[in-house]
């Protein structure tokens, strides 16, 4: 087996992704439990993991659905929560240029936070071989499989986890960890603080528009505060 074979690249991706599953599996379990808790049918909770396939946005979807939000607002909010994937799409695009359409569609479907994080180093800094897209396929598929299984596990375990363990709090904790990783400049932190401050009163807005309004205010504050950041590194 040559180092550049599709198989070697694919399993290289699998190996790069496995450590990240340590954080993903508990999140999937909790999402399964949470989906049932807000009243979603079990099949819908499991189906959302393959249809939407984006952890934070699925949690938001479940919360909004439980609160009886109008569908257009749900779709818009999920879109905003997943808008950061534009950045990933832009970052991997140059390495996937020239691939057939079926590859582009498959890799776009598999492009999540964790699959991107584990693959971008290989794509950017590794050798520019003909089979390197298999590496992203390996990280993406591993995450996909782990996410489906852990969601299913959460739905099956759902009733068995005692409520007084407060496991739902681990969703906030996952978001806190992701937030710290996404803050690189002072203005990033201001965007987060402003959105957090606005969202609490904004939750009272009709049609559950609060999350969208808060995100918009956070982005605006970040842009305003950008002038106080130090020079670009």
């Amino acid at each position, binding site marked *: 087996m040559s180092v550049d074979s599709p198989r070697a690249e694919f399993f290289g991706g699998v190996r790069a992704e496995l450590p990240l599953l340590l*954080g993903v599996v508990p999140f999937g379990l909790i999402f399964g439990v949470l989906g049932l808790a807000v009243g*979603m049918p079990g099949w819908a909770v499991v189906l*959302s993991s393959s*249809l*939407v*396939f*984006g952890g*934070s*946005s699925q*949690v*938001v979807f479940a919360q909004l*659905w439980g609160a009886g939000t109008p*569908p257009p607002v*749900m*779709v818009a909010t999920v*879109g905003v929560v*997943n*808008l*950061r*994937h*534009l*950045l*990933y*799409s*832009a970052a*991997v*695009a140059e390495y996937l240029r020239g691939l057939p359409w079926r590859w*582009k569609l498959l*890799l776009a479907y598999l*492009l999540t936070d964790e699959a991107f994080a584990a693959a971008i180093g290989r794509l950017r800094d590794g050798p520019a071989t003909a089979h390197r897209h298999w590496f992203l396929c390996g990280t993406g598929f591993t995450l996909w499989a782990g996410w489906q299984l852990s969601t299913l596990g959460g739905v099956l375990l759902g009733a068995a986890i005692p409520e007084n363990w*407060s496991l*739902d*709090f681990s969703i*906030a*904790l996952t978001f*806190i*960890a*992701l*937030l710290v990783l*996404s803050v690189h400049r002072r203005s*990033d*932190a201001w*965007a*987060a*603080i402003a*959105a*957090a*401050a*606005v*969202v*609490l009163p904004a*939750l009272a807005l009709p049609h559950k528009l*609060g999350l969208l309004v*808060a995100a*918009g*205010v*956070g*982005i605006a504050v*970040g*842009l305003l505060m950008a002038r106080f950041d130090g020079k670009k590194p």
Partner: protein
Amino acid sequence: MSTTALLLTMAACGLVTFLIRLSFIAFGHHLPDDPRISAVLRYVPPAILGALIAPEIFMIGGSLNAAPDNPRLWAALVALLVARLTRSVLATIAAGMAALWVLQGWLG
């Protein structure tokens, strides 16, 4: 919401998410390369995460609790500190949950 409406809404959410991920991979050469767009995009992750976190900490059972006897507030601060020190998702979850359990026992 009916089963059909739930399915359709979920499918629409999936389609929007897929198109966002496909955007530059498939249509990169047609998309505008405007620095103002990337400037807006870079604030999406911190803003949306801030807006997702605050209700999880302060809204308990549908009502606001920002008082110092809210154990989630202190557990979140512990998690924030651990996240900054370790930059590890798993360590953040472990420290935050441990802090919450200790505080819930203590604050009653």
